[in-house]
């Protein structure tokens, strides 16, 4: 039997507000336990939640970024369940009337083809606290610093057909939310968490199979592995004559498997109802217009602009716009560098290699964008050759100063004086008269290859500083004569 995989994702993005969604507590990560938990976050009686305007603005920004309808009126609802890290006994979320309606994002697959994936909705809600299950004399520790942190839950259509497509979609959402600055995207700190609904069906069947929900995956690699494991598990269950049960499963990265969470039959009985503590959220056209006004350029638009404005290939433009910070770095470097293609090669080549090797994020790059641009400018104006530039770059990386400082300090300035180069050429030709004879008597087809020997000798003698174009030109003239 040929099986088809069907995947939908629910992505929880923590919004990058300073304060919580319904209280004035800080959302800063990593504080001492419970030092950022106010009476509202603790779920004390008699307190009232008041909605954070910035969280609403961020939700609207996401909606406009994916071409979705922003609801003029949306409603907060209580999602009721008991868990110690949810002190109120309910999570404030949105149910029937979410703030963001349906939209669509384009994902790029490995073969370069694109495919639309529908976003069903996105709604605002509050995060829960954290349970620490280490042993506190047989008890569980609760830290409510995270309780009330604003989340935008982004729900996709079941449009993905493989783990790779799901990863491409998740990366696209990650790219969008970080580009528009509504989420820091930090997956280690839990700012971007994914749930995957996975089912299989015989190829050609319209009806969906029973799905399992894989909860709380916080890396793209685990997302792919978890889905692949789950698909294989479901196929095995069905082919052995069994049935897939609708349940929540956890992915265990250490064992590379998914396993059933203790399933409770009332698990999905959340008894949502409108939260009487909160009035309906109304968003008017002026508010939306203000958000659209401040919207940064989106990744797809930026990629297209990089192609048209800088004449970059689709591949280069795609790589450079992969993250906003990388795209910003490239543009700043290209401004001083004056040659977009050459700058792009440096950003994706030597710079990327150095960042990779040292395990440094581009945000913490020791070579500032304008400094890399200056290095490119020095290649362009023939102060140094591309080869010497690699040494200059290494010195810049090591903190030895700007391109100009390094060139000056190490005496790397290119020799462009024709007289000086001619002298070098003459020296080399005189010292290698046998090779000169060989060259002159050789087949003209073979000569260009033989020229390399002389170029190498001259460059060596000049310590790499002779201008290669001039060397080639002079050599050809002198050897021809």
């Amino acid at each position, binding site marked *: 039997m040929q099986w088809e995989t069907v995947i939908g994702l629910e992505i929880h993005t923590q919004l990058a*507000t300073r*304060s919580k969604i319904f209280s004035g507590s800080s959302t800063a990560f990593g504080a001492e336990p419970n030092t*950022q938990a*106010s009476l509202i976050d603790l779920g004390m009686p008699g307190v009232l939640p008041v909605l954070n305007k910035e*969280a*609403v603005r961020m939700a609207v920004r996401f909606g406009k970024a994916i071409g979705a309808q922003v609801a003029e009126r949306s409603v907060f609802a209580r999602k009721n369940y008991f868990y110690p890290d949810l002190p109120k006994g309910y999570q404030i979320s949105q149910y029937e009337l979410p703030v963001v309606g349906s939209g669509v994002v384009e994902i790029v697959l490995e073969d370069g083809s694109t495919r639309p994936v529908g976003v069903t909705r996105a709604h605002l809600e509050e995060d829960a606290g954290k349970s620490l*299950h280490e042993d506190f004399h047989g*008890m569980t*520790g609760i830290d409510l610093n995270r309780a009330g942190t604003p989340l935008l839950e982004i729900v996709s259509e079941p449009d993905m057909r493989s783990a790779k497509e799901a990863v491409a979609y998740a990366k696209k959402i990650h790219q969008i939310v970080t580009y528009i600055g509504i989420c820091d995207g930090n997956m280690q700190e839990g700012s971007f968490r994914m749930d995957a609904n996975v089912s299989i069906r015989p190829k050609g069947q319209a009806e969906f199979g029973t799905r399992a929900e894989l909860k709380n995956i916080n890396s793209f690699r685990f997302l792919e592995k978890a889905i692949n494991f789950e698909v294989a598990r479901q196929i095995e269950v069905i082919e052995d004559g069994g049935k897939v049960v609708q349940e929540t499963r956890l992915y265990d990265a250490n064992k590379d498997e998914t396993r059933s969470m203790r399933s409770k039959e*009332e698990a999905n009985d959340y008894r949502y109802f409108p939260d009487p503590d909160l009035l309906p959220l109304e968003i008017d056209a002026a508010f939306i217009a203000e958000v659209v006004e401040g919207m940064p350029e989106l990744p797809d638009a930026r990629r297209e602009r990089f192609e048209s404005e800088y004449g970059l290939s689709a591949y280069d433009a795609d790589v450079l716009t992969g993250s906003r910070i990388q795209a910003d770095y490239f543009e700043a470097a290209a401004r001083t560098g004056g040659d977009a293609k050459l700058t792009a090669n440096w950003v994706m080549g030597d710079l990327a290699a150095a960042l990779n090797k040292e395990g440094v994020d581009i945000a913490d790059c020791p070579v500032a964008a304008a400094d890399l641009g200056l290095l490119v400018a020095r290649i362009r104006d023939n102060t140094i050759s591309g080869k010497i530039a690699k040494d200059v770059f290494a010195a810049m990386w090591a903190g030895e100063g700007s391109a100009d400082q390094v060139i000056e300090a190490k005496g790397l300035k290119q020799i462009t004086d024709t007289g000086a180069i001619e002298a070098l050429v003459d020296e080399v030709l005189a010292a290698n008269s046998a090779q000169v004879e060989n060259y002159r008597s050789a087949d003209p087809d073979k000569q260009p290859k033989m020229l390399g020997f002389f170029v190498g000798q001259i460059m060596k003698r000049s310590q790499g500083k002779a201008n290669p174009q001039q060397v080639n030109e002079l050599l050809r003239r002198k050897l021809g004569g």
Partner: protein
Amino acid sequence: MSLSADDVAKIAHLARLAVEPRESEALGRELSSILDLVAQMDAVDTADVPPMAHPLEMAQRLRADVVTEEDRRERYQAHAPAVENGLFLVPKVLE
């Protein structure tokens, strides 16, 4: 509308209320009468009435994204039955 003993048990469980079996029948009757009251609404034509999310005809006010709360952990945790290293301690929860 008449709730069965099972319905009552389920509702009680969802609300984490310990309902004795002997209370179940009376509670079922009372809950049913509340539901009957609400069910009278079914007789009214509400096709043109938008669902009400809140009795007040007002919109939610928004607050500026400013941190206004300070750390009062010590005071808040003075009420907690068990605390350690700044954490609230609760009976063991198993996943």
